[in-house]
């Protein structure tokens, strides 16, 4: 991190060390969690040998299994819906010249990002109670779909902006109607953005805790809710194992998302 020679004119003493501390601060807690999930004893402070026993315990735990199943179903379905909706909206706003008030629509799509999660959570709970909606994990899926739309929308929109509109014009020139152009040109070229958005929507749903906690009815426990229950009652090594797995999924998803977003 330090270069003594070839110093930039903007270089300020000490800033490199603060940056180093900053990254340690970001990653040290995560690293500790991962390391101690492999610890041979219950201790989360003293290393006493490598072991996979906590993973084995976690994977054979029925409650964790059913929570994981719920989490995956919810994440998959809300990713599907939010990505489809976000793609449609991005193409309409990016390519249809007949639509008015585009900034208003764009702002509305980003609204879930601007409101604190706890507000969204209680508002959604209140609404579901008011209209008497009780579809079990269906409720959670609806709430997640809404919350995931902006996360799916942003990478898709970015991709579409970088896409030369004259490619679509060229396709029209070469005897493709609107639908064929969408199918053969726009969607294939947009695909990396769509995958990138879908990955983000997936981890946002998978990791969500507050909204799920407020909206969830008895019997629709997700992994974060299960973890929260364990953490509240005290630190157990299984939590470290489950958390590490969840962490791994998120990191893989965000790396894939980045990779797709940069794809030519």
């Amino acid at each position, binding site marked *: 991190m330090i270069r003594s020679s070839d110093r930039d004119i903007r270089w300020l003493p000490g800033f490199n060390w*603060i940056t180093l501390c900053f990254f340690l601060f970001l990653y040290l807690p995560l690293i500790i969690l991962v390391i101690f999930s492999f610890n041979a004893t219950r201790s989360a402070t003293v290393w006493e040998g490598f072991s996979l026993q906590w993973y084995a315990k976690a994977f054979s735990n029925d409650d964790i299994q059913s929570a994981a199943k719920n989490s995956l179903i919810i994440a998959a379905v809300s990713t599907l819906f939010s990505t489809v909706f976000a793609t449609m909206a991005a193409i309409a706003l990016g390519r249809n010249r007949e639509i008015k008030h585009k900034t208003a629509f764009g702002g509305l799509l980003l609204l879930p990002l601007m409101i*604190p999660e706890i507000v969204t959570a*209680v508002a959604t709970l209140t609404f579901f109670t008011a209209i008497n909606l009780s579809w079990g994990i269906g409720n959670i899926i609806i709430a997640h779909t809404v919350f995931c739309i902006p996360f799916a929308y942003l990478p898709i929109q970015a991709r579409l902006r970088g896409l030369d509109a004259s490619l679509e014009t060229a396709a029209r020139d070469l005897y493709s109607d609107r639908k064929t152009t969408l199918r053969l040109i726009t969607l294939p070229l947009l695909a990396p953005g769509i995958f990138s958005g879908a990955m983000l929507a997936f*981890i946002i749903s998978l*990791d969500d805790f507050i909204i799920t906690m407020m909206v969830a009815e008895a019997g629709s426990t997700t992994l974060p809710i299960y973890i929260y229950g364990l953490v509240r009652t005290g630190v157990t090594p299984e939590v470290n194992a489950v958390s590490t797995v*969840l962490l791994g999924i998120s990191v893989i998803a965000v790396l894939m998302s980045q990779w797709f977003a940069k794809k030519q």
Partner: protein
Amino acid sequence: MSDLLERLRHYIGVLPATFMIVVFMLAPLTIIFVYSFLTPGDYGGVKFEFSTEAYTQLLFQKNLFDEVEFDTSYLTIAFRSIWVATVAVLGSLALGFPAAYYIAQQPESRRNTLLLLITIPFWTNLLIRTYCWILVLRDTGLINNLLIGLGLTDEPITMLYTEGAIALGLVYTYVPFMVLPIYAALERLDKRLIEASRDLYANRWTTLRHVTLPLASPGIVAGAILVFIPALGAFIAPDLLGGGKKLMLGSLVQLQFSAARDWPFGSALTMVIMSVVLICLLLFAVNQRRNEGGFQH
């Protein structure tokens, strides 16, 4: 009529997403607004009787003799929330600005790697990230073990379940929101301005004060707002690192909709949070506009 249908056809694409957000986000917020003026139901929910009780409750309590008295308990929570959120903003700035500054002057490939490293934790589970700090901060945690092991202290220092722990957790959670806008502002900054300042007899630090900081201020303001908004309504950090003892607005709201079953009061608190958020967003918009009109050409 067919003309109208023809025009509506263009909007089919934006319709599903708009529908979801209007029905499941805007409508619920409206309901919260309405509920804040109603009377609590006996077992949660509301009775449809108009009342401003929820709002007066914020500042006044009825005592045993049914007299209305000024009461500071909720005000204390509100001020604690604002105080802790402010500390989180300052902490993020102290850590985030040098990091953003350092990253902005790196070669492009390294810059992108470092930015990715900042965003990765942001995308991981908030609950788990906060939980990690319990492992570090608790009495038998990493820091205390280290301190005792080095003989610096005999008794473990209480760090968990303090306001400091909450602020630390908030900094940890939201510091990327501070770094990214500052980085964006610094990356745009013309290096020749720094050279001009140095050429005109300013040293590194006076240049930072008189050139870099003013030019980065839109990014700093944006970062401060982006950290402040979620910190104010945070639930996980106060709950896990504050142990639920040091109540903050987020936990208080959550409490009203679960254990306390006072939905109108919870709604009124939500409206308080929303008004602070709106003010912040307004400031943000003003900041953006000034930024566009000013430093960028």
